[in-house]
């Protein structure tokens, strides 16, 4: 179907489309920067295209690739009606250089500029701000071009290739007063980072501005919400992020592909299995590896178990936020989560940071008692699942705090790039496991729960039903799973078995190469998405043929979903803001990355 769009596009804007290519099923269109906005509105509105969901925007610094111009911006689009992905790449013209400076924007030099698409896809707002902050590309006519992750007084743009990774040596010595160590700790900013700027349209004289966070028990982490209040009514909420920014993308670009897997665990740390899955799928897509069926089933089982565990955290903390409900709810939820963590511990030795999936398969074979443990869990969980319903679903306090609160309608949600349960609660049955099945999700009989109420209660019912569907998927998967190899036979990706190394010279060479050098994917660019408990987790990889990714992009679903806070909370009461945050289900590790 993309051929038709390319045809139409060339007919309508003959000069705009400079090039188009296909790689691993991804269609890439190179668009002229001047005509970006025309092409964007065409793709958004044309009836054959209808790319209504802007998935991601990220910049590329091609300094070390030797290409000109240096910067490019990538737009990942998805069409919900047509179920189709497309990527736009826009070369950003180099800015004029004053007096031989390096154009890095460090000393007030002009930054490269490209037109903003915020009015076409409102979700672009934060994505463009992030690109500006970390890559130093300015978007013209953006409503508030401002740093989002780094402190306001930060110098430079960390994701640029001429910006060092940073860091400092860590000495494990007892003596704190030794002058030898006086140079350490200089990374800490001198200025108070909690006094950051507020948007200009905020009425700080007529209204009260209440600062919720960055340390607040109900923000689920270190999130700051600058809330403009008229009495108890919320006029505007401005989330301020970056308090947990950890430089995942930059770190990933300095590591080999397989070494980023443990980092994924620490991103959305309540669903590490799903993160691992989304990341290894991206690398496998780049390298075009075939995965054995047994592995696919194991991945599905563990990913669905993790979905239950993640929803347990959501339910527990959400019930805690609402407060009026029995305080037992979080304890009941954490009890079931512990059972799942026990299974994970049995599988890989860790409770939370699992790193169990590796590129090409699994890290180790499953332990023998795994299936019985999962069966026992499902039996126990079914009882608890019933208890959660009894505790909450018809609880009058729960109903009055959630019903009709935090409305996010389908068209608003799509415009804001919302994915996951939030979008499904608005009535859009978009679930990647159904519309573009990965692993072996097409083998199972499960439903995509939706609701049309679009309020906090709808999000609750949708997630509760997802728990049920996850149980169904796991039940079917443990019935259908067959024994098989736990990793691919492709020796360029997965290590050969131990006994083979002592008998075959070729295996020894493969082993040596993999351990010392890593695998070398072909040059190219892929974008791969996994359906996480919180929404779409996207990984963008640009390979230059070496063992490290040239560009690693992470699209955190919480990051994009959090942008809807203002839409959902404005006009409501300040106390409802807390329940709304709970119903979005954010994890700050993923928001800030």
């Amino acid at each position, binding site marked *: 179907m993309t051929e038709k769009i390319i045809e139409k596009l060339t007919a309508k804007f003959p000069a705009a489309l400079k090039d188009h290519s296909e790689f691993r099923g991804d269609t890439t269109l190179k668009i002229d920067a001047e005509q970006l906005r025309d092409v964007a509105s065409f793709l958004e509105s044309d009836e054959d295209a209808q790319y209504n969901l802007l998935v991601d925007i990220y910049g590329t610094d091609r300094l070390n690739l030797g290409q000109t111009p240096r910067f490019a911006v990538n737009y990942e689009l998805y069409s919900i009606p047509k179920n189709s992905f497309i990527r736009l790449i826009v070369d950003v013209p180099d800015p004029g250089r004053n007096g031989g400076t390096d154009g890095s924007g460090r000393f007030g030099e002009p930054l490269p500029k490209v037109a903003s698409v915020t009015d076409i896809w409102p979700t672009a707002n934060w994505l463009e701000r992030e690109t500006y902050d970390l890559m130093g590309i300015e978007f013209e006519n953006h409503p508030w071009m401002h740093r989002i992750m780094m402190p306001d007084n930060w110098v430079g743009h960390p994701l640029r290739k001429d910006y060092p990774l*940073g*860091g400092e040596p860590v000495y494990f010595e007892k003596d704190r007063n030794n002058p030898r160590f006086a140079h350490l700790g200089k990374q800490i900013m001198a200025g108070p980072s909690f006094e950051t700027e507020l948007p200009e349209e905020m009425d700080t004289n007529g209204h009260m501005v209440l600062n919720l966070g960055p340390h607040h028990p109900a923000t689920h982490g270190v999130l700051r919400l600058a809330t403009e209040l008229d009495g108890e009514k919320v006029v505007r909420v401005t989330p301020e992020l970056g308090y947990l*920014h950890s430089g995942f993308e930059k770190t990933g670009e300095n590591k080999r592909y397989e070494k980023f897997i443990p980092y994924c665990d620490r991103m959305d740390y309540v669903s590490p299995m799903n993160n691992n899955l989304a990341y290894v799928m991206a690398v496998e897509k780049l390298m075009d590896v075939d995965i054995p069926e047994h592995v696919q089933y194991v991945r599905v089982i563990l990913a669905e178990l993790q979905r239950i565990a993640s929803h347990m955290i959501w339910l527990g903390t959400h019930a805690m936020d609402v407060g009026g409900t029995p305080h037992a709810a979080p304890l009941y939820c954490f009890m079931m989560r512990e059972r799942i963590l026990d299974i994970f511990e049995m599988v890989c030795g860790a409770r939370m940071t699992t790193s169990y999936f590796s590129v090409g398969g699994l890290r180790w074979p499953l332990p023998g008692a795994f299936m019985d443990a999962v069966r026992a869990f499902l039996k126990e969980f079914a009882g608890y699942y019933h208890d959660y319903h009894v505790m909450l679903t018809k609880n009058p306090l729960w109903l009055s705090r959630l019903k009709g609160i935090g409305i996010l309608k389908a068209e608003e949600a799509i415009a804001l790039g919302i994915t996951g349960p939030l979008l499904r609660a608005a009535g859009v049955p978009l679930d990647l496991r159904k519309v573009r099945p990965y692993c072996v999700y097409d083998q199972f009989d499960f439903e995509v729960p939706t609701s049309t109420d679009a309020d906090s209660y709808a999000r609750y019912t949708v997630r509760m039903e997802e728990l049920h569907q996850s149980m169904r998927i796991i039940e079917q998967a443990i019935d259908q799973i067959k024994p098989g190899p736990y990793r691919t036979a492709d020796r360029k990706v997965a290590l050969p078995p131990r006994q083979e190394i002592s008998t075959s010279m070729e295996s020894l060479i493969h082993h040596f190469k993999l351990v010392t050098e890593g695998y070398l994917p072909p040059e190219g660019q892929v974008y791969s998405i996994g359906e996480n408990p919180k929404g779409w987790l996207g990984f963008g990889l640009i390979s230059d043929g070496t063992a490290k990714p040239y560009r690693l992009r992470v699209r955190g679903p919480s990051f994009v979903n959090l942008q809807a806070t203002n839409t959902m909370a404005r006009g409501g009461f300040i106390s409802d803001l807390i329940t709304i945050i709970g119903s979005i289900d954010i994890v700050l590790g993923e928001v800030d990355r």
Partner: protein
Amino acid sequence: MGVAVGSPQQGALGGTQAHAKDGSAGFALAKLEELVNWGRANSVWPLTFGLACCAIEQISAAASRFDIARFGSEVFRASPRQADLLIVSGRVSNKMAPVIKRIYDQMSDPKWVIAMGDCASCGGPFNNYAIVQGVDKMLPVDVYVPGCPPRPEALFYAIDKLREKIKAEEKLGVRE
């Protein structure tokens, strides 16, 4: 511990029962320092404060399976004014560092700090532009907990170590 209990009839150091059977109130003798330390060590109230992955294990530690209440630390206080213990549970970014410093300054004395996990202890796997390499660059840390993230049992061990430390404090913990 050097706390002696007794009843008026039995004399100060001879008795073993605080409340004698005859209904008299009894009395206790102890060195003030030790009595205060005993009280402090058994009611270390942590701040409700979570940063990253370790915060989830911190919540698990408070949940029913591990039950931090066994150590008298189940009262998580949302206000730094009411908390004794700051558990830095996760990576500290440049943007967050001044905030943590301010929270620590707001806590009233005596106060203690546990650096939970590798990131809070030494930066962990994040040796990069964004993360401060250990919270001890700006706060005095009492106990470091290794692990990524540490299990709840490891956190309990740290709290136990901290209790030992509190019990051994001199001059009512006044630091010069």
